[in-house]
């Protein structure tokens, strides 16, 4: 490593360095309906799996940021035991977000821009099989007007689906088509005869419950080019949030997604692929519309969150899939992550190859 790569940059020079930070590798655990492993064990495996192909060890990591959720684990300070997975001795620079690992990546991306360190590992992890999402998630809603009603994710998704359908952005058939394409299984006509889970949503419109974790290696400057031939450079990264209570939002739109995409430079050049964290079928159709993605853009070739939805890792996996596109020879990809009811908060990450 050259000495200059460790020269601290001034805090106001974010713009100069922000195009020189790249994803160089990532890994995910098997995505299971219920794993026998603890979250810590999942992270031990997946961090090793992300580092080994790069010939890196935990000792090489300058900064870690983990994304997870105590409410899902059912244990206060569960992220503390997750630290056992990062080899935190001698003591490391570490942070945690009670958010999807995509936001952990955002924090690491900011941290690397300080210019004094080169290698960060971020994770997202969750064992959604621990409890009933219908009972857990209302606790994270508005405590006065939503939580006391037990307002659950399916209900919010159904109300947003109604709005998206009413706006002409989706219909039940196009939603079923998203489900069939994502899962690579099922027949649209047959699916449309099923009962509603929450009208207008049927079971195929709804994500599975998945346990799993992902880990990603983010590297700055020359170090990235030393590690891999084709780093996936983050050239745009932004996230925005809207009002917490869907009562005050236009549910047939996602202005936070639009603003984040604009700030991340989506309009500067075409993307070949987009990985969208759309856990519900109508969300993919709404996000495609808001991001103005045409048919030439391959959306969620991985199957997305409708196929595997390891909550707290689902968004980071989207960024991993987009990075895979760059690693595999692609030139520009978009990844999206979301948090909160009815796409409350949205994150856009643009990844590019560099010639």
């Amino acid at each position, binding site marked *: 490593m050259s000495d200059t790569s460790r020269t601290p940059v001034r805090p106001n020079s974010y713009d100069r360095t922000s195009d020189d930070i790249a994803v160089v590798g990532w890994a995910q655990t098997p995505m299971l309906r219920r794993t026998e492993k603890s979250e810590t064990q999942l992270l031990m495996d997946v961090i090793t799996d992300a580092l080994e192909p790069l010939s890196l060890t935990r000792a090489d990591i300058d900064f870690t940021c983990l994304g997870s959720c105590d409410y899902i684990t059912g244990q206060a300070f569960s992220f503390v035991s997750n630290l056992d*997975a990062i080899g935190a001795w001698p003591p490391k620079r570490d942070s945690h977000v009670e958010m999807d690992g995509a936001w952990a990546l955002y924090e690491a991306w900011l941290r690397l821009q300080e210019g004094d360190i080169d290698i960060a590992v971020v994770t997202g992890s969750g064992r959604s099989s621990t409890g*009933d999402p219908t009972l857990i998630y209302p606790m994270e809603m508005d405590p006065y007007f939503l939580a006391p009603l*037990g307002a659950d994710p399916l209900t919010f998704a159904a109300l947003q689906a109604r709005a998206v359908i009413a706006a002409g952005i989706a219909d039940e058939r196009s939603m079923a088509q998203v489900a069939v394409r994502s899962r690579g299984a099922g027949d649209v006509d047959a699916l449309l005869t099923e009962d*509603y889970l929450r009208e207008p949503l049927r079971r195929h419109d709804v994500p599975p419950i998945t346990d799993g974790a992902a880990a990603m290696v983010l590297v700055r400057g020359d170090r990235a080019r030393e590690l891999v031939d084709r780093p996936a450079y983050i050239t745009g990264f932004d996230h925005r949030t809207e009002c917490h209570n869907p*009562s005050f939002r236009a549910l047939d739109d996602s202005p936070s997604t639009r603003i984040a995409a604009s700030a991340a430079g989506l309009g500067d050049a075409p993307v070949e692929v987009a990985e969208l964290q759309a856990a519900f079928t109508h969300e993919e159709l709404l996000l495609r519309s808001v991001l103005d993605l045409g048919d030439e853009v391959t959306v969620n070739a991985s199957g997305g969150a409708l196929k595997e939805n390891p909550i707290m890792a689902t968004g980071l996996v989207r960024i991993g899939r987009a990075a895979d596109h760059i690693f595999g020879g692609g030139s520009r990809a978009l990844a999206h992550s979301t948090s909160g009811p009815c796409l409350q908060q949205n994150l856009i990450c643009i990844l590019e190859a560099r010639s």
Partner: protein
Amino acid sequence: MARFVESTITFPYKRSLGPVVGAFMSALTERRILGIRNGDAVLVPPMEWDPATGAELAHEFVEVGPAGTVDSWTWVPVPSEQHPLDHAFAFAFIRMDGATTPLLHAVDCGSADTISNGARVAPRWKGTRVGRLDDIACFVLGEEPEIDGEDTGPSDEPVGRMDYVASITYRNPVPLATDRAVEASRENRLLGATCPVCGRTYSGGKGYCPIDAVEIGPEDEVDLPEIGTITNYSIVTPVQYPGQTETEPFVRAFVLLDGTDVILPYQPVIELPHDEVHVGQRVNAVWASPAEQLDDGGGMGGAYGNLLGWMPNGESSIDDLDLLNRIF
């Protein structure tokens, strides 16, 4: 095959309401629904700030209703235990007459065929109201509010706080290493595990080395000495929060096992009054009789299985203040 255990956690929150939500909740006890003026708009539910700009709103309340119109809805065929009704119902965005924004609430209307956008609904009030959103039991079709049972009237004082309780049952795997440590304790053995990479030894069924981040299997497990020294301790004066079972001050001690670097944290002490515990005290492990056996126990890494705690063994105390630093 790992074993799974269920545990139910109750989250009993007491929430401060503040000047705007408090006014709304107080009005509910009077069977009135308040919005707050935001320019030309009337926000229901009321907010302290403009949702778009974040500007603080003047406390100019507007009574809305008593009926409203369904803006959108979905049908809940199988309610959860947290839902307002125990039978199928609609969740709906309800725009109260005079309001600009919709309130989410339940509509009790029998079947999905009876509700549609534009349907008129009115609140069914609970007879006894405490200043919570569910003072409105639900909404019903039509223009006329209803009351469930005898009306015990409004709150005597403004409502400033609300209770919120959620109870969640979690199902988590028990690591195999934990089960092996508990099993060993049934034979009055204190099981340790030695990292095959760095050689450090851990206790209490920790199935991996946190420094090398590798799993430790049964082949690297060892029996630990059952004698040690108290390095540090805390005397806990129990606060009677919900779920607290202790009533008297009690000790949690850190025990360094002889000839090892193993420290057992948060250990109970036995036959050792809390005003006599001290650093350097020599202690032996105390094992349960079959009648005293605990379940898995081990919360916060404390006693588990047949290990009940630690008792003074009569040896002279060790006079070494550096022991204080040995808590992990």
